[in-house]
């Protein structure tokens, strides 16, 4: 019994001392607690970790990463106002919901994460195009359908589509319909997951086998493997894309290439009120695809996760990030890096 009494007293003491010391740890310009969505692809986790580091050390936020994905995070931000920031939101698929959220005043579009926009396309490996130059166009692909045989059904050819649940799954199927790939013997294969899609491309490229499918830049895989985007010959029909190709019930899809996908940094409007300088940083922070492809290839080669990549970027590429933050914030970032 005596020991129990001592234990309770010790616990009470520890709790009160923790409460006392906690406020002292907070920075002087406190922006409060901020949650960021950490999505599971390389560029998104890199940018999310970078934002977390900068918000924590330069702007005094209590920044935390929580796992997320495009549609669930977007929905959660609109409906529940959590997480506070989505650093790399691919908005081409649920633009309507996003615009509604902005109009209702729940969300603000802080800026563009990818200044070039995301580049989506159907890709073929360069070694294949070197052997068959006509594969750079969709007509050439249709003529050479025999190259992309389905091992499970030799009468079919395979266009590797998007995994179940990705917004691009609808677009890819509609585009295949628009270009009559079905008549040429193509089926759109669902790889099941991002790992399945990357695995299928990696396996084909390592063995120098033919591969045709959807992929997007900026990614480590496209930074590592030299691929050629297939030209549909139709140019970009933005209206057709937005109104029909991305919709499930598209009656009569017309051929169009993927327009550059707007990839935005989105924050809840409440954040703009309590941390305006953080939002100002978010609005300036943007990457070109060329730069990101290189960084992602570095991440892949060094098996780096988002956190390591963010620190590497801050250490190595000061010229790139210096213009995004004020002098005082830059000094705080540098001292935080030095103390790592």
């Amino acid at each position: 019994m005596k020991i129990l009494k001592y234990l309770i007293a010790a616990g009470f003491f520890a709790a009160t001392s923790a409460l006392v010391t906690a406020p002292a740890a907070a920075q002087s310009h406190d922006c409060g607690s901020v949650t960021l969505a950490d999505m599971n692809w390389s560029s998104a986790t890199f940018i999310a970790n970078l934002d977390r580091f900068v918000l924590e050390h330069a702007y005094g936020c209590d920044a935390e990463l929580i796992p997320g994905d495009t549609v669930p995070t977007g929905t959660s931000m609109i409906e529940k106002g959590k997480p506070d920031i989505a650093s790399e939101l691919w908005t081409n698929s649920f633009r309507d919901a996003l615009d509604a959220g902005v109009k209702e005043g729940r969300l603000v579009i802080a800026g563009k994460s990818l200044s070039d926009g995301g580049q989506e396309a159907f890709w073929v490996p360069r070694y294949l195009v070197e052997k068959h130059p006509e594969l750079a166009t969709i007509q050439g692909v249709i003529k050479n359908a025999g190259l992309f045989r389905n091992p499970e059904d030799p009468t079919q050819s395979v266009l590797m589509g998007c995994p179940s649940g990705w917004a691009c799954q609808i677009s890819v199927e509609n585009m295949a319909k628009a270009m009559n790939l079905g008549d040429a013997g193509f089926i759109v294969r669902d790889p099941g997951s991002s790992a399945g899609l990357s695995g299928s491309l990696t396996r084909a490229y390592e063995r120098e086998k033919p591969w045709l499918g959807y992929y997007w830049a900026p990614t480590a895989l496209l930074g590592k493997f030299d691929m050629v985007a297939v030209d549909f010959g139709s140019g970009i029909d933005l209206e057709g894309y937005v109104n029909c190709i991305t919709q499930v019930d598209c009656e009569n899809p017309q051929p169009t290439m993927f327009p550059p996908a707007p990839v935005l940094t989105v924050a809840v409007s409440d954040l703009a009120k309590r941390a305006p300088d953080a939002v100002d940083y978010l609005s300036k922070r943007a990457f070109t695809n060329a730069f990101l492809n290189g960084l992602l290839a570095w991440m892949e080669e060094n098996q780096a996760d988002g956190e390591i990549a963010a620190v590497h970027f801050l250490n190595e590429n000061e010229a790139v990030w210096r213009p995004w933050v004020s002098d005082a914030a830059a000094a705080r970032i540098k001292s935080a890096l030095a103390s790592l």
Partner: protein
Amino acid sequence: MADTSWWVTFPQMERETLVGFRKALDGAYRDFSRSYGDAIEAFFEPLLFFLVWFERLLINAPWWAVLVVVCALVFLVGRSWKIVAGTAVAFLLIGYFGMWKDTMSTMSIITVCTLIAIALGVPIGIVMARSDRARTIVTPILDVMQTMPAFVYLIPVVMLLGIGKVPGVIAVVIYAIPPVIRLTNLGIRLVDRDVLEAADAFGASGWQRLVGVQIPLALPTIMAGINQTIMMALAMVVIASMIGVQGLGQPVLRSITNQYFTLGLLNGLAIVALAIVFDRVSQAYGRRMQLQYERISNV
């Protein structure tokens, strides 16, 4: 003073060493996959051919023919009208809600997986039961198979065999086979020592003892193992669909990513219905086999 940071943070390997180690293993596996990949694919060709043929058979056959054959099989194996009626109702509902094709795909691949798991698992369980050394070797392997996250061993399989049915079968069998092995081993080991002595006294050979005494008496436990294997095989349906296996797993994945609750619920219920049908049938078969043995022993 000496750096005592190890007092607080674990003294871990240098990051460069760890990365070098990981890259070396990855590189070694990549070389292995490049040299032996084609040979291993050729080895699995017959299995792939059979899987594709079986799936196409189930999908292209008229639905009422499949329903009649399934109900007939259920009756022949189970001899219970209740199970037949339940099966018919379940399949009719599945078809009515638009899940027939996916259910046929899942049923074809899961049937093959459970048959492979049982055909491989029961003999391994028997070997484990007869030899303590076999048990010490096999048990940690079973532990790994059951707890290692599926994607960890799926990545090398996908790199070797691509995405599709064969990696799906490998994934499901690896996950589903441990229960039948463990419970077969347990059931045979639990057979009463006196009964075994009596069998020896009557001059039974090792094989006669196994087939005539140990397996019949261990049957309830073995059937429990088969039941668990079936359940776990169906639980893997969603993970298998993550590496491109067609079936009920894909709508479930779509519902997870897009937050369509009802779609996920309906397809999940179809998976549950399949599991219950498979399980009741195998349990009824087990009970009939047991009755047969009891009838023989009561003569």
